[in-house]
């Protein structure tokens, strides 16, 4: 982190003309001291606040910021970023709205990282880290990344698409100082990769990797190349392989890297000879530092015991791809006393969750995923009693994601009494609009209990049969709420209005299939500038409202289905056309269409909201 000794004298500064003596109350600190102090600031929220104090502080902050976080890649143009922050070495960019994970956003929506990389290549040749989420990343982009930044060290791609193993080949070939290659949750193009090629592209003298995660890649990899790579990388602490890696291969990898802290196994679907079983068991028992364990595809009760010896120090166990039943799950849990985070499939059922309640007193986070999400007539999975059992035994629980088919108001009330410290409460009752199955009433009181009791609540996902009352409760009590997800709920515009008026810290609001219309949308005009984004799908919003929104709030970007910019709305004759989907955020949809004029406005406040890391 370099501090420019004379920030005010810099020729690059856009506020050159307004330098040192312009402020009414000049900073009592000399500028280089200020710079030094600010370089210790890591929180984006703090940095945003600092930048608003006065011009001096704004300048000192921008010269000392090295980590850039942009929560919505269309909220600001690369040019503005480049002008404001000259010393960036680490970039985090997020693109598509979250509902693109569920196929609700058009394929060609955008969020292509390439034009960002082109700018970075010019302005930040010393870029070291790039973390992308829900962005389109082409092989061409990966090649640019690999060749234009000699000091590049860390690449993280979460839920990104558009690239193939060709792009990874470029990274492996050219990034001499790579310490991190982390690919998560990717639907990759299938590409013929007969040589298992990309892993072999790491040079023979390359050994700097600390993180290697290719668990979500489809293709076979060259195991010999992988084994040699792992043996060379003495600092490797995270290794997550894909399903092509078999048990005997995993055992060999573990022998090379007993220092691993995070392990993602390959597939457990292999018949081992007795000798091999013992080898695998002892390989696992050598891993004394394991904190995270994931993968475990096709693991069965026969093979689970090989893991036991490695579980003593486990804090995060991800079994969300392993269809375990309650018995073997309970046996495994008995060996994991230090678990803080647990992800499971609902095949473990309520009985399995009871075991969680009794074996995991330190548990802070639980996610229960549905093994069969689309079978609406299934009676298995977990119910309200599993959730209650966990809450009873795990008083430190503060993050829950729970998929179930039935729930009651009483159960939720009980749960939050046991665990009043929820920060993230995401309950998904899978049948849309399902009431309390015992009383047949709406689930309003359940979520009312949550927001009344859990004052630290930051994130809430609601489900089940809900009236406006739920949203009245949310608006009245959820004063720390930042993210709200709503589906198939509410009775009228009033519900959405309650939330918009009542939740001061609301940043992300996503709504689908609710009876909220124009009045609700327009009630939030001032609110939207303080939010990262609003996404609405299959509600009762028409183009009329969007046009009004666009007219009255020029700094807001409003988009309908297919990503049309708001400029085109005026061409529509049908004012009453119901919009299938709407996305709204503050900032500019920069570089989206050729010739579109980019806004030169640098609304610091607006930008700061979108550059806050959450």
């Amino acid at each position: 982190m370099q501090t420019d000794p004379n920030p005010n004298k810099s020729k690059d500064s856009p506020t050159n003309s307004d330098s040192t003596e312009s402020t009414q109350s000049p900073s009592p600190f000399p500028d280089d001291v200020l710079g030094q102090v600010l370089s210790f600031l890591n929180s984006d929220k703090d940095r945003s606040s600092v930048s608003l104090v006065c011009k001096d502080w704004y300048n000192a902050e921008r010269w000392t910021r090295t980590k850039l976080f942009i929560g919505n890649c269309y909220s600001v143009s690369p040019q503005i970023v480049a002008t404001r922050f000259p010393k960036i070495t680490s970039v985090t960019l997020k693109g598509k709205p979250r509902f693109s994970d569920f196929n609700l956003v058009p394929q060609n929506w955008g969020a292509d990282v390439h034009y960002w990389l082109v700018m970075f290549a010019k302005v930040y040749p010393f870029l070291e880290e790039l973390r992308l989420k829900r962005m389109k990343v082409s092989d061409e982009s990966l090649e640019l990344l690999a060749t234009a930044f000699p000091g590049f060290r860390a690449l993280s791609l979460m839920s990104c698409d558009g690239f193939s193993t060709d792009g990874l080949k470029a990274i492996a070939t050219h990034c001499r100082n790579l310490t991190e290659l982390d690919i998560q949750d990717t639907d990759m193009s299938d590409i013929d990769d007969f040589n298992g090629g990309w892993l072999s592209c790491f040079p023979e003298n390359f050994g700097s990797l600390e993180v290697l995660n290719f668990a979500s890649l489809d293709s076979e990899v060259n195991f010999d190349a992988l084994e040699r790579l792992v043996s060379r990388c003495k600092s490797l602490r995270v290794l997550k392989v894909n399903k092509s890696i078999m048990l005997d291969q995993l055992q060999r990898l573990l022998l090379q890297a007993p220092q691993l802290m995070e392990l993602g196994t390959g597939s457990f679907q292999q018949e081992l000879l007795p000798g091999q079983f013992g080898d695998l068991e002892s390989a696992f028992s050598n891993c004394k530092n394991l904190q995270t364990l994931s993968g475990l595809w096709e693991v069965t009760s026969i093979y689970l015991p090989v893991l036991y010896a490695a579980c003593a120090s486990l804090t995060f166990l991800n079994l969300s791809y392993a269809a375990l039943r309650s018995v073997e799950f309970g046996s495994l849990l008995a060996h994991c006393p230090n678990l803080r985070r647990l992800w499971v499939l609902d095949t473990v059922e309520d009985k399995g969750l009871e075991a969680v309640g009794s074996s995991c007193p330190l548990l802070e986070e639980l996610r229960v995923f549905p093994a069969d999400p689309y079978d609406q007539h299934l009676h298995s999975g977990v119910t309200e009693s599993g959730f209650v059992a966990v809450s009873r035994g795990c008083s430190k629980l503060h993050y829950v994601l729970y998929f179930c088919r039935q729930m009651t108001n009483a159960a939720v009330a009980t749960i939050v009494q046991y665990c009043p410290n929820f920060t993230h409460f995401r309950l998904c009752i899978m049948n849309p609009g399902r009431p309390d199955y015992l009383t047949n009433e709406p689930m309003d009181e359940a979520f009312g209990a949550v927001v009344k009791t859990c004052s630290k609540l930051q994130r809430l996902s609601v489900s089940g049969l809900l009236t406006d009352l739920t949203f009245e409760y949310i608006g009245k009590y959820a004063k720390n709420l930042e993210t709200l997800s709503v589906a198939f709920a509410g009775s009228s515009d009033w519900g959405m209005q309650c939330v918009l008026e009542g939740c001061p810290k609301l940043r992300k609001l996503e709504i689908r299939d609710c009876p909220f219309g124009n009045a609700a949308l327009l009630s939030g005009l001032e609110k939207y500038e303080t939010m990262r984004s609003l996404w609405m799908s299959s509600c009762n919003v028409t183009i009329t409202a969007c046009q009004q929104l666009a007219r009255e709030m020029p700094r807001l970007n409003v988009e309908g289905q297919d990503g049309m910019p708001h400029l085109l709305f005026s061409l529509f004759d049908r004012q009453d056309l119901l919009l299938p989907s709407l996305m709204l955020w503050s900032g500019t949809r920069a570089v989206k269409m050729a010739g579109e004029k980019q806004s030169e406005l640098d609304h610091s406040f607006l930008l700061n909201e979108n550059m806050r890391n959450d």
Partner: protein
Amino acid sequence: MERASAYENDLNLKATELRLGLPGTDESSEKQSLRNNKRSSAEMDNSCEKNEQESSPAPKAQVVGWPPVRSYRKNVLHQRNESDLSGMFVKVSMDGAPYLRKIDLKVYKKYPDLLKALENMFKCSIGVYSEREGYNGSEFAPTYEDKDGDWMLVGDVPWDMFITSCKRLRIMKGSEAKGLACL
């Protein structure tokens, strides 16, 4: 005969029509989008697609993007369901029943066991299989969809072959199944 012509029509239109999902229902237009899934295959389509219930009053058609399970996780789970070694659960539907059931084929060793279990589960009478006449004379006849998507009469092939190729079961009304038996 009225019955013969009824079955003839049925034979032409429904019984031999290769469809995914319950005969008598329309192909749902709310298919789970597989755009993002480059590994999409016929098997994947079969397991993803769910059609509306024939007789339920408020049909719960599958809704796009709901429940909110990520594409990536969905794909992995479907692959798992396809290759589930620890159980061979298949869906069983019966004409006129409001909801389906699931049974584990691995639990049974031979046909009579399976038929008895089905009779118990659905409170119907299936009768005895004969090679020549199928389940002639019974109120209901068990059929299954095989890997090729064809609807077959239960009992024609050896048991082991049956359990590896059976993807779902349907207990048809005897009148409809008659057509199959006579082929």
